[in-house]
């Protein structure tokens, strides 16, 4: 019982991070129908910017943890958003209107380029970071097993929920969010009504990258080590989460992220750590056979 509770806590924490990344995949897919394979690498860039920023602030003598984290969050979000914007501008926009596979190939190329760029600039070794938010709460003990809720886990859940709330407000209540939803439903019609679709698509990439940067910072703080390749696995997991939740659906992305996080954690805890990815992807495969549109995705109604 205690053990299961602990796994639940760990799974939800991990799932939140996946969910944040998955939102970026699902938004971009919704609006231009393309899987942005470089999105996981924007997450990785966010994690690296966070690392550099945290170490730099520590070297400068900023010892207040909330201040350091706040500044790092802003820096990571700003720089990753710039990457997101540049990727769309350089690698995808020139290919809009080209055949469907072209931007996909460009995305894979962009992903490889970003990974190699960070590998060359930062080195290939795993970068460690001493715990920034140590300690936690012992919820209960059962025999010799103590259920721990780390402060870091609390931070992750609180930050994720706050960011998602802000994001939901942006999408549902602001003119920009309305424009994004309109473009998602009918890009041509949105353009005819005077919406600058290029700019709306750019901003979608920027927002997705900003969310990925938040995830990157949280991932770095949670695991305490990153390398240039973290974006790949986390990206594929988040992509899986987006598909499981129903690609194009924003609540679906978060739900899918939570499920993938839980499946992975619970499988590692009860079965085998080595096969945790196999478990996550098998469940995706099974889910897609019975629910091709994902959990919250809507079936594509044929237009007549």
């Amino acid at each position: 019982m205690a053990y299961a509770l602990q796994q639940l806590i760990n799974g939800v924490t991990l799932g939140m991070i996946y969910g944040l990344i998955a939102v970026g995949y699902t938004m971009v897919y919704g609006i231009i129908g393309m899987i942005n394979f470089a999105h996981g690498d924007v997450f990785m860039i966010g994690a690296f910017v966070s690392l550099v920023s945290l170490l730099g602030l520590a070297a400068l003598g900023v010892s207040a943890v909330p201040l350091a984290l706040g500044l790092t969050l802003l820096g990571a979000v700003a720089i990753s958003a710039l990457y997101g914007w540049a990727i769309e501008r350089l690698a995808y926009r020139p290919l809009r209107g080209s055949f469907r596979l072209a931007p996909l190939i460009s995305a894979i190329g962009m992903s490889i380029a970003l990974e190699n760029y960070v590998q060359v600039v930062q080195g290939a070794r795993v970068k460690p970071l001493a715990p920034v938010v140590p300690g936690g709460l012992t919820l209960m003990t059962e025999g010799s097993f103590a259920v721990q809720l780390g402060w870091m886990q609390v931070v992750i859940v609180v930050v994720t929920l706050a960011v998602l709330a802000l994001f939901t407000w942006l999408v549902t209540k602001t003119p920009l969010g309305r424009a994004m939803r309109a473009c998602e439903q009918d890009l041509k019609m949105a353009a005819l009504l005077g919406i600058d679709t290029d700019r709306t698509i750019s901003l979608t990439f920027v927002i997705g990258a900003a969310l990925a940067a938040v995830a990157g910072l949280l991932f770095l703080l949670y695991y305490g080590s990153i390398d240039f390749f973290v974006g790949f696995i986390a990206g594929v997991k988040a992509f899986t989460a987006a598909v499981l939740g129903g690609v194009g659906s924003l609540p679906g992305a978060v739900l899918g992220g939570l499920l993938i996080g839980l499946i992975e954690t619970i499988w590692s805890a009860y079965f085998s750590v080595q096969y945790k990815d196999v478990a996550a992807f098998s469940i995706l495969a099974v889910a897609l056979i019975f629910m091709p549109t994902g959990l919250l995705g809507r079936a594509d109604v044929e237009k007549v």
Partner: protein
Amino acid sequence: MTEHAAPLLAVDGLTMRFGGLTAVDDVGFAARAGEITAVIGPNGAGKTTVFNCITGFYRPSAGRLWLTRADGARIALERLGGERVASRARVARTFQNIRLFAGMTVLENLLVAQHNRLMAASGFGLLALLGTRGYRAAERAAIERARLWLDRIGLIERADDPAGALPYGAQRRLEIARAMCTEPVLLCLDEPAAGLNPRETEALAALLHDIRASGCSLLLIEHDMGLVMRISDHIIVLDHGRKISDGTPAAVRADPAVISAYLGDEDEDEAESGA
């Protein structure tokens, strides 16, 4: 309507070829400001092609399309192309099939059409984030305009329902209201009465009159002859890509060329059998 009103839209020698097929052949007409101009003709006459040229979907093979603005400046529509016809020349259009944002609410559909004004006022979302007074005023004004149109089309009660849940006739009216929220000088409607029942057609006619009264000119393609004859100030008849008649509803109805295009030419048959 007066004969000397300046033509809002002047179409001159418009020709559109697709490979070897000439869909529109040297068509010229004028749509005057403050009038309802209808383009009619049998299926395949080239009506929608003319529309697509005017609204920037097609680049004409030849011909000029002049739009005269209120300040007297002339805009060459065929050079603008694409979405800029909508944004710069303020020519709005609807399609034969309904293209509402079905997943968004009725009110949101009308707010999206006012996006540019709101976006500028909201500082690209940043000021909306801060909730500044300028942004809130702009948002209120946009909602006010949307409510005005919802009132006119009789959908004020359903403002917060998803647009896709409305009955067909209401969706058509909402689409027209959405186009009007972009504040066009010319509204192009492609078969607005298609699929409407007589009562809905009646409501549509009233709405179109309302729009004309508000100062926006209309250009429409329509198959419902009863409606066309009743509401139009001026009718252009196309057949096989050529203009065969142009005038008031009464003049067009009496034109033998129009009657033969719609009913088939008896003389032609006789001439063939006699030869």
